[in-house]
């Protein structure tokens, strides 16, 4: 046992613990923490995922061995402190006035000064000198009228040592209190079981509910106008319900913006309802609110059920848009091409701030500017689910977005098996509407329109002999493109042209397609500028490839926000803060306070003065300092008042 304690308080053990804590922390920062098991299996494979789970590496900072390490660090520091405190305090108070002359003269900084007849005022003047150099001292009388001035400065440095090490113990203790050991133990014993089902708060079973006692950091999601009296504590793959001793109502949430649309602040106006007491409070980022030891923080926001009025715009026909209504979080049945679907609205954002394109002209020397962030307007996210239950995710921007000098309606889609959203840019016409593109797209789908376009292209050809061949090619191109997009053009080139000629032929095919498409536009009385034609072809191609056949046009909305509040209780915080204050003071004391001891032996009988200087550690500059003191003393000895 004694040997064990010896080990615990040894410096080698302390440094070993420091190292292991550092390495474990580093692992925790590199390996993503607290993810569901499936994530690790997917990323690292079954073997590593199992190993990580077994060793607790997926949640290092709450693993029992890591908390154990912190505990060891606290114990080791505490033992070291207990061992050294008495001697430190003794040292701080002692002047070591009984140090023998012999041991004094063995110091690296010691000297013997001749003083034939030391003045009787030397004692007072030496004392005054010591005081001006911030020394405190005691005097020991010797025989034959001799005396020793034993001085020390900077005793507070040792206080710094005590403060720093006590602080580490306090911070560890406070941290462990807030580390919620009770909860961990309860989960280990199986008394507390995280809930994995998505249940309304009232239905969460008792073994997944926590009462108001311990420390916690939970999340409270509130819709505008909604009231809750319990918060969610995410644990592993599930959650626990943290009951609050009062209810909280969200009166209003809003986002403040800078001139460029970037978010400036997130503000929740809440009301605490505690029996008959009602307290109103405003939460902002960096401005939390505390009530009865429980602190609320603004931590996030989302949509709390915005109601929407939309026009469902088919892209393949010129049919009139169908008006639909919905609510974020709810769903709306629709008919698409005669089949039944449901639109599940998942999110609505009134403002989206993106950084625009890099400006080419700006130089590094140009004066600083407010970046190039700007608001591109509202966006809506939704899932489109078919009768079989298969869903695809969509995102649509409600306002045309400017890019390279033209404006586009942007809509994106992601099928279940795709990893990222694929966006289509539908060109806006001269009026900023989708009408011209819709006419083009509808014409592309109509066989008689395609035939007319092919005929017109052929009619414009100068070489009459080739006209028939051109018409045939144009028609084939249009038909294939209408079905498969640019991929069809590539297939036509591959099938119809010998290998060596393909590189030359492809641009000709594309040119023919563009000319035919321009006529398709003219035909439909659209805007025939070639940029618009090119954009339309690209949009049509992308829409075909990603299966996007509709656009949603927002006609009205009433926004309802939800606000995510962090709710915490940290009873250990006071201990930790005390520890932090001591740590700051202590490190300052240890660095800025210089500890010195100076002895002046005065022996009038033999006409000698001895002087010696030490510091708490070997210092290369100590000699120079000593020479100063010696010179000053010599001066005192020889200048008689």
């Amino acid at each position, binding site marked *: 046992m004694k040997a064990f304690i010896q080990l615990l308080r040894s*410096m080698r053990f*302390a*440094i070993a613990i*420091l*190292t292991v*804590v*550092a390495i474990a*922390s*580093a692992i*925790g*920062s590199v390996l993503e*923490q607290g993810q569901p098991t499936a994530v690790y299996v997917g990323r690292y494979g079954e073997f590593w995922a199992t190993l990580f789970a077994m060793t607790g590496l997926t949640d290092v*900072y709450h693993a029992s061995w890591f908390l154990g390490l912190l505990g060891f660090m606290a114990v080791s520091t505490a033992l070291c402190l207990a061992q050294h405190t008495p001697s430190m305090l003794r040292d701080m108070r002692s002047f070591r006035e009984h140090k023998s002359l012999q041991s004094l003269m063995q110091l690296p900084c010691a000297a013997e000064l001749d003083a034939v007849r030391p003045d009787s005022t030397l004692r007072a003047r030496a004392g005054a000198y010591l005081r*001006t*150099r911030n020394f405190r001292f005691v005097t020991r009388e010797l025989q034959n009228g001799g005396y020793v001035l034993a001085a020390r400065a900077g005793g507070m440095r040792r206080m710094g040592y005590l403060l720093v090490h006590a602080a580490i113990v306090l911070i560890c203790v406070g941290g462990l209190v807030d580390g919620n050991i009770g909860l961990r133990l309860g989960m280990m014993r199986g008394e507390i079981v995280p809930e994995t089902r998505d249940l309304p708060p009232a239905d969460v079973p008792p073994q997944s509910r926590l009462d108001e006692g311990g420390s916690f*950091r939970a999340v409270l999601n509130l819709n505008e106008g909604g009231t809750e009296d319990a918060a969610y504590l995410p644990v592993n793959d599930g959650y626990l319900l943290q009951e609050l001793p009062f209810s909280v109502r969200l009166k209003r949430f809003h986002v403040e913006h*800078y*001139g*460029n649309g*970037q*978010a*400036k*602040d997130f503000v929740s106006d809440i009301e605490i309802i505690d029996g008959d007491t009602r307290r109103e409070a405003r939460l*902002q*980022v*960096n*401005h*939390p609110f505390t009530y009865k030891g429980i602190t609320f*923080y603004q*931590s*996030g926001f989302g949509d709390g059920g915005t109601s929407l009025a939309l026009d469902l715009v088919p892209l393949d026909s010129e049919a009139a848009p169908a008006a639909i209504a919905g609510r974020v979080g709810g769903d709306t049945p629709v008919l698409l091409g005669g089949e039944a679907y449901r639109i599940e609205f998942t999110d609505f954002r009134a403002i989206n701030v993106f950084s625009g394109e890099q400006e080419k002209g*700006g130089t*590094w*020397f140009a*004066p*600083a*500017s*407010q*970046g190039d962030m700007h608001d591109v307007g509202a966006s809506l996210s939704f899932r489109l689910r078919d009768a079989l239950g298969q869903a695809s995710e969509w995102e649509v921007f409600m306002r045309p977005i400017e890019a390279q000098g033209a404006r586009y309606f942007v809509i994106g889609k992601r099928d279940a098996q795709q990893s990222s959203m694929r966006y289509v840019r539908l060109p806006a016409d001269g009026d900023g509407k989708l009408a011209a593109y819709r006419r083009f797209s509808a014409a592309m789908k109509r066989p008689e329109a395609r035939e007319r376009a092919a005929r017109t292209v052929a009619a414009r050809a100068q070489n009459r002999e080739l006209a028939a061949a051109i018409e045939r090619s144009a028609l084939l191109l249009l038909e294939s493109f209408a079905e498969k997009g640019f991929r069809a053009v590539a297939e036509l080139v591959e099938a119809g042209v010998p290998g060596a000629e393909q590189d030359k032929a492809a641009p000709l095919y594309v040119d023919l397609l563009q000319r035919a498409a321009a006529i398709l536009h003219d035909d439909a009385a659209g805007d025939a500028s070639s940029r618009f034609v090119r954009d339309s072809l690209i949009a049509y191609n992308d829409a075909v490839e990603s299966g996007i056949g509709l656009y949603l046009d927002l006609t009205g909305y009433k926004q309802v926000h939800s606000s995510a509040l*962090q709710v*915490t209780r*940290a009873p250990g*915080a006071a201990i*930790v*803060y005390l520890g*932090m204050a001591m*740590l*700051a003071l202590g*490190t*300052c004391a*240890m*660095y*800025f306070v210089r500890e010195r001891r100076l002895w002046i032996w005065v022996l009038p009988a033999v006409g000698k003065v001895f002087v010696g200087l030490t510091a708490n*550690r070997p210092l*290369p*500059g100590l*000699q*120079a*300092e000593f020479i*100063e003191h010696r010179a000053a003393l010599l001066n005192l000895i020889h200048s008689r008042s």
Partner: protein
Amino acid sequence: MMSSAYPIAIPTTRRRFWPVDWVFAIAAGAGTCLALFRYFNAMDAWEAGILILAGAALGAAGMRWRPLQGLSYATAAMSMLALALYDGNLARGESSLLLKYLLSSQTAIMWMGLCAWGATALYIAGAAAGNRQWLRRAARAAWAACVFGLAGLFVRWHESYLVGADVGHIPVSNLYEVFVLFTVITTLLYLHLEDRLGDRVLGAFVMPAVSAAVAFLFWYGAARGAHGIQPLIPALKSYWMKIHVPTNFVGYGAFSIAAMLGIAWLAAGRGRMASRLPSREWIDELMYKCVALGFVFFTIATILGALWAAEAWGGYWSWDPKETWALIVWLNYAAWLHCRLVKNLRGAVLAWWALAGFFVTLFAFLGVNMFLSGLHSYGSL
């Protein structure tokens, strides 16, 4: 005994203040009052308190280290001239020649970088040739870099308010701005060390680190366009930023100098440098001083960060990657100090360790932002 001739940090006699010192103290006080009255509406009570404490600290520090006085006067003069030239209109930055080529923050920062590079070259040449004249000029260039850097930051602070009244903020909010801060603080710390040591040769080792920071800064500004003034995200809108960030950079700066001194220690044992450099005993002591100073400031900065986190993120410690790496840096230097102070370890091990510690610090400073996501990346909310 002769190797100990360096008068480091020894107040030779009881400190005597000259009239210029009192003038400086009064000037610092007056400047603080001016800022307080002029910008009172832009500050909350905490910020006013921070300003007053900063003014007092500047006055006290300047009285104790006289070169700081010249630095302060020059910086104040340049900044106020720039403010007068701007006259509340950001577009003047293009039309006024003085602003365009000398005083606008962007230009001043460029001059800072060039001065730092010049100082580095002169330090290296001076140390290699044993030319005191060059070393003196190197120190002057380093001072000029500090003046330009500080003035650049102050002017940038003003410019941010010209961009938009609600956009204005202290320029320590992104990687570009803190690199300027790092350059200035590290150079100043080194100049202080040099002044106390009375020997300029170590600049040849320390200033290359500053030059590397400047190179990164220029690349970051030019290639990534990082120099634009952006409005603050909500999480950064707090008075804590004004104390947390600069304190942290005193720590980073001191740790960087310690690492460079580690290299100097290793070089001091061999070849031609051995005769030119201070003794290994002294370099070892200076390295300790730098690590210890860095440790003090890094500790305080981490504590301030924890207090800020408690206010912004709802907990004083979240094991966010930046926090975690701050702890790792802290533990590393704690172990370094224990080995030196308690185990009396000296020499090559500590020198290599200080150098390794620099890479740990560098990862905490840059690597975390580049490779790990977390609360400090400000991706959420």
